[in-house]
């Protein structure tokens, strides 16, 4: 890892000395020149996660006042409280497994981030965040798919874009090939990928050229063959990488397997539900705490599992919106506006909370009730896509939005 970085840096230096290499090109060279591809993993928290109880603004009095029964206490108050990050923000105590990542500088929380559309509908808000076009329902494909479209790669493997879900999510649907896979182990055809049935199906789907199933059929058969050759199942988690039980932990473990097996993954997706806490959300303990425990454990296990490989990987978490700043009448929270994102990776400027904090004073709240958005989710993604993956055509990934580096939250380290 180190060797390659030095090599690239010196190559870059040489270019600079000729005066022809702006920094952005240098980064592009770095992203493209590496033998192993850079990879992006997106984790979607479906159901609208309560960012205010994840990255806790314990330094703000209004926070405690608005949440009499569910606020997370400030650190060091004698009982269990937030895990101090910077004297103002703290992590929910159930995210303790992520603290080492914060300390080593690979975890960068972004606060007050979200989609600018005002909808408080789960369905619409998820749709907008996956299409990458807030307010526009007619967009046919997802931004992760358009990212792949925007960088054609004749040498791409069938696993360039993969979703560890039983169905293909909106975010990855579109013209570029993408594999959905509930489980690596089950991803095979009865009788084997070369059996007579497989050949029969392959012929039929090959011929169904006018059908949307045609492409899916081809992708399926290619993926089966490719998977057989590379056998990612033999990559077991590194010592100490303990993924929590359940689909979500399993899916991140399998993303790690695919990455370690070097099958050409560039973008991977998975999702995790259980964040819609209208009632009995809980504080230090309770329903949200239980979900966060699993959420954090899986990310920490993933980081440990990848080891040095984390240098080439960035994980971004997202959720469709946040929740009301005030708790509701049932010790829960209703649908709100801004929430948080975690960015995790070797090239991430971790160890600091990113994003401008809008505050929770009544006049600072969105529509008088929700945390306001100060970072458009497309600006965070724009930064990660360009600086980590070397994406050049962001206007194609986020049509109708002028992604500008001046608005990047600054989560990626300069190359």
């Amino acid at each position, binding site marked *: 890892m180190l060797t390659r970085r030095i090599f690239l840096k010196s190559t870059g230096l040489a270019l600079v000395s000729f005066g022809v290499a702006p920094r952005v090109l240098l980064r592009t060279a770095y992203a493209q020149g590496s033998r192993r591809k850079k990879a992006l993993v997106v984790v979607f928290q*479906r*159901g609208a996660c309560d960012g205010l109880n994840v990255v806790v603004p314990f330094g703000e009095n209004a926070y405690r006042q608005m949440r009499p*029964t569910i606020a997370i206490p400030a650190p060091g108050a004698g009982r269990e409280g937030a895990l101090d990050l910077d004297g103002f923000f703290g992590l929910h105590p159930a995210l303790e497994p992520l603290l080492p990542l914060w300390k080593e500088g690979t975890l960068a929380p972004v606060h007050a981030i979200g989609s600018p559309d005002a909808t408080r*509908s*789960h*369905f*619409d808000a998820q749709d907008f965040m996956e299409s990458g076009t807030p307010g526009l329902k007619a967009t*046919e494909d997802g931004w992760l798919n358009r990212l792949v479209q925007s960088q054609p790669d004749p040498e791409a493997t069938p696993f360039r874009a993969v*979703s560890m*879900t*039983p*169905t*293909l999510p909106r975010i990855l649907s579109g013209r570029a090939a993408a*594999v*959905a*896979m*509930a489980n690596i182990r*089950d*991803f*095979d*055809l*009865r*009788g084997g990928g070369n059996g*007579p*049935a497989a050949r*029969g*199906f392959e012929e*039929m789907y*090959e*011929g*169904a050229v*006018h*059908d*949307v*199933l*045609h492409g*899916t*059929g081809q992708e*399926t058969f290619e993926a089966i063959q490719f998977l057989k050759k590379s056998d990612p199942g033999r990559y077991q988690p590194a010592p100490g990488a*303990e993924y*929590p*039980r359940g689909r979500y932990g399993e899916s991140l473990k399998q993303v790690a397997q695919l990455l370690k097996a070097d099958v050409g993954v560039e973008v991977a997706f998975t999702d995790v*539900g*259980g*964040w*819609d806490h*209208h*009632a*009995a959300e*809980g504080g230090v303990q*309770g*329903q949200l705490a239980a979900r966060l425990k699993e959420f954090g*454990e899986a990310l920490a296990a993933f980081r440990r599992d990848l080891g040095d490989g984390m240098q080439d990987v960035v994980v971004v978490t997202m959720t469709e919106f946040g929740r009301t700043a005030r708790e*509701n*009448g*049932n010790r*829960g929270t*209703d*649908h709100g506006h801004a929430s948080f994102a975690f960015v995790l990776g070797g090239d991430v400027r971790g160890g600091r909370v990113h994003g401008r904090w809008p505050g929770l004073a009544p006049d600072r709240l969105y*529509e008088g009730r929700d945390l306001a958005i100060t970072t458009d989710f497309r600006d965070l993604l724009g930064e990660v896509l360009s600086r980590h993956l070397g994406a050049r055509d962001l206007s194609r990934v986020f049509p109708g939005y002028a992604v500008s580096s001046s608005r990047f939250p600054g989560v990626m380290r300069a190359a």
Partner: protein
Amino acid sequence: MPLPHLRAAGLALAVALAVPAAALASKKLPVSPDPDATIVHVLNRLGFGPRPGDVAKVRAMGLDKWIDQQLHPERIADPAVATRLGPLRTLHLSTGELIARYEVPPQARNEIQEKKAELGNNPSEEQVRAARREFMQKYRDRMDGTPQDVVQDLQSAKVLRAAYSERQLDEVLADFWINHFNVFAGKGPVKFMIGEYERDVIRPHAWGKFEDLLRATAESPAMLFYLDNWLSADPNAQPAELRDRPPRGRLGRGPFGRRPWFMGDRPAAAPPGQGKGQKRGLNENYAREIMELHTLGVDGGYTQKDVTEVARCFTGWTMRNPRQGEPSFFFNDRIHDHGDKVVLGHRIVAKGGGKNEGDEVIHILATHPSTARFVSYKLARRFVSDEPPKALVDRAAETFRKSGGDIRAVVKTIVTSPEFLSPATRSAKVKTPFEFVVSAVRATGADVGDARALTQRIAAMGMPLYQQQPPTGYKDTAEAWVSTSGLLARLNLALDLAAGRVRGVSVDASRLVPASAASDPDAVAAQLVPSGLAESTRKTLESEAAAADPARVAGLILGSPEFQRR
């Protein structure tokens, strides 16, 4: 769904749309030159696909008559289904009986918690299995089964009904409404309430007035719990007056909760805001979803202010006995917000105790033009195509308005329309996993003795029945179900089913592929898919015919691109 062959077919559709209004009004259905293909199409849309011999039966009866009969399911004798459902013993029990006999006792809950703590963070499968066995042994005399058994019976019943009921359209419509008014079995006691919800709330109103259906769901314990309205109260209601509060009960997570890992659920969390002297308050969850998902649609013209006002109107719509005894709707005027409200421009004033406010909201929503349009659009999308013709949706919405939301009339408008019967509409829909599995069972004339394995296959394709967490229900459009993983699961089911490798299901592949027809794939296809076989499919099947393996040919047919559509 922008498919080339559909686009090309758009022309044919445009021609069909040019049928003069007089022809539309006439009772005579437009007749296709290929009547069997129309019959297969109708069997695929008003039901879950043809069984061996179905096409001939409908031909003999006459398609018009068959459709008319399906529109009046109460006139169709249906003895086979009762026999099939017989072994599912939880199916006919009330919610209270299910809770009493299938819920994990509180004492066991505590023990499970202790066991979980003992096993630590990542117990092995064996440890979990052993622990489960131990608990089952210990509590066997107090429980007739587990909460999972209750959910399993619901799932099995759904598959068996769809596969064997003669009232096919009734099953399609019940499935449509269950999905439209989705509730999630994984949230708290909802799993015990779904049986009653489907039996006493959805099915009796499925063919009636939409407003009655909407009201029945609003007052159902399943919906009250799932979307939290049973907890919603006027924040200014006096705590002392909460003595009529719902009994203490365990709360599940929100609609996006997750499946439990152990014997069922997590242990009791303290019910929020229900401790002594605790005040409760407003919960917007139901108010938002009744407008966004049940009636107006997300663009139906409501605001956040309307959401809050509707939530205030529904304060006090709660239930008795959510966790023991028989849960039942109950209006608690003590926690109702009695102040004036304005909903969608209508001023709403409490009369008497204030229950009238929620009733008025239901009436306003059920009779709103956006609702007529949204519900008609969704029905047309289910029956016709992912992007149903606007003219058809307009006519269906007009029927909805003129008939006071008469569901039977709206469905009839759609399924007797020229757009529906047009050849261009054939095979336009991709089957959902549920539709695919059931249609494969029907196509092979399979005998399902135990539907559990089939329900597991459907779940693995991303559609665990009664377990859709978000209130949106399952998607009804192609892009949601076309994926590598989903396709692979379908191909494997096709091969397993045809070869008799699905537990609990016996299949005689020669019923689908009789020896006489083995070399004539088109003859087989004519009984199954309305738009014929693609050249590549025909060639593949012909080359397989030489191998004289009916199971493999049947498997290939069920897995063919053509059979993934309806």
